[in-house]
């Protein structure tokens, strides 16, 4: 559906995107992960035809962005990081204008607008000026704008940035829902977000794609699933000693006491071993109650460091 071949964008001496190639199949939800300034937005801006690439090509549904820009643009709904909203218009006027520039048939315009407003839940603010809307609502109007014209491909640049947790969950669910009949490329710098929504993740750093895989494979490949944070009521030395003797435990580190009479530990297990049950039984036999136990997700920085160092070792 979307083919990106050897995309390069140079700003003078600075290379923002460097020989990026990837393909997105129809119906896929692909996450673009990377720190700020990695080239996510630039790549998206090129795919949507907002700026031009220095080299390389982008094809959507077989149409080249340079040769047939209109055909490509018709097929893409784009929500940039800062939704392009006219603050002096009401929500309805704005969506009406977007429908006009996207050349939606007059007869179906009203109906499709209603459907979209319903989907992103902005029907109750339709008469309000965009200027007076909260960040969450603006974000949704931005999403509504991308959905107008029923484009088969959606490109969402940091769709949840600046939203509160409830809104983030709503938007994620909406994206999943949209993923059923859309091809979606979304960017983020938050790993859990990408793994919650996407089927495939592209990690981009300094303009280069450094990894491309499913979220599960990515964390498996990085081989670091078994890290637990545990709070145990008991004396530190004995607890640590007990846990170190458990089979499958690689290391135990104390992170200090946060409650009196307890100790917080960071337990690291060997690859592919779930130590939660043996850990529970051991501590319960010794009568040291577990007050809290939770697995630690890899943070983006860690994945990132690992992926980038891996690359360096290879090359």
């Amino acid at each position, binding site marked *: 559906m979307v083919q990106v071949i050897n995309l390069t964008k140079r*700003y003078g001496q600075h290379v923002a995107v460097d020989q990026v190639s990837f393909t997105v199949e129809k119906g896929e939800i692909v996450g673009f992960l990377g720190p700020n300034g990695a080239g996510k937005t630039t790549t998206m*801006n090129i795919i*949507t*035809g*907002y*700026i*031009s690439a220095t080299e390389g090509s982008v094809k959507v549904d077989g149409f080249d962005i340079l040769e047939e820009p*209109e055909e490509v*643009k*018709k097929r*893409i709904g*784009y929500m*940039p990081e*800062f939704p*392009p*909203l*006219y*603050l*002096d*218009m009401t929500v309805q*006027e704005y969506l009406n*204008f*977007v429908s*006009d*520039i*996207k*050349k939606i048939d007059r007869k179906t315009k009203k109906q499709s607008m209603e459907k979209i407003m319903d989907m992103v839940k902005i029907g109750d603010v339709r008469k309000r000026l965009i200027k007076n809307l909260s960040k969450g609502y603006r974000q949704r109007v931005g999403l509504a*704008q991308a959905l107008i014209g029923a484009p088969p491909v959606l490109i969402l640049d940091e769709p949840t940035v600046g939203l509160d947790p409830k809104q983030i969950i709503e938007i994620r669910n909406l994206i999943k829902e949209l993923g059923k009949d859309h091809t979606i490329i979304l960017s983020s710098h938050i790993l859990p977000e990408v793994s919650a929504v996407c089927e495939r993740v592209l990690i981009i750093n300094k303009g280069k794609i450094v990894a491309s895989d499913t979220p599960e494979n990515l964390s498996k490949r990085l081989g670091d699933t078994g890290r637990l944070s545990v709070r145990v009521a008991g004396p530190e030395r004995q607890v640590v000693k007990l846990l170190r003797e458990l089979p499958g435990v690689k290391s135990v580190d104390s992170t200090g006491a946060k409650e009196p009479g307890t100790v917080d530990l960071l337990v690291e297990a060997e690859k592919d071993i779930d130590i939660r049950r043996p850990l529970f039984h051991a501590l319960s036999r010794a009568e040291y109650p577990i007050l809290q136990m939770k697995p630690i997700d890899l943070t983006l920085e860690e994945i990132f460091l690992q992926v980038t160092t891996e690359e360096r070792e290879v090359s």
Partner: protein
Amino acid sequence: MLAVLRRELKAYYLSPTGYIFMGFFLLLSGFFFAFSNLFTASPSYLGVLGSITFIFLIVVPILTMRLLSEESRQKTDQLLLTSPLSVTGMVLGKYFAAVGVFLITLLITCIYPIILSFFGTIAVWEIVGGYVGFFLLGSAFIAVGLFVSSMTDNQVIAAVVTFSALLFLWILDWIIEGLPTDRVSGIVFACLLVAGAVALVYFSIRNIYVCIAVALVGLGIVAVLYFTNEFLFDGLIVRVLEWFSLLKRYDNFTLGILSLSPIVYYISFSSIFVFLTVRMIEKRRWS
């Protein structure tokens, strides 16, 4: 294009811009009408139209400063440029919106000659011709403002630069009067034009050999022209600058003469600036 045109027209009247433009324009033209027609009981309305052309220097920047600069500042150009709308359609929509506001204002000033007609006979067709010229002159100035607005995302800079550019066009005739018209200066000027072309080529492709080729060809043409028709260089500066003299072409309209050539001139002048605006936006996307 129509969608952009509608939105822009609405935006003019949702913000104070449209009202400031119209208010200022009508206030000044009202003054001039009162002083030169009503108080002196003179029926010559074309004189009023002629003397209020300086108004463009002040009101055109108001009208055009936000047209494209605001889009790029608010990032709403992302919406327009990633929609199936063509850049030309977008620019034309904006240009015609600004021209539309100007036209509406101009139609209101039609009250003045109607008032005059109560007190005697007025030369209807002369006034219509005068209005055509006035409208075309204004549209050409608006095209310049539109172009300037596409170069920056700062409205204040757009306004100031537009004002300076219009001021230059305005005093061009006086500048021309003071310029030398002899042959040597004409040749020097032609060489400077060649140098300008070379600089333009250098900054766009940065290839020194092409530049040398362009310079040689340019100087060759100058030399050939000099030996075939040396009179060509007499007053060359003046003739070239006169191409840009918008006001000179307006003189005929104030005299009540409606001829085709200034009309074609104004329309081409506007078209060139609209075209340059489109190129400017395209260029920004490539850099």
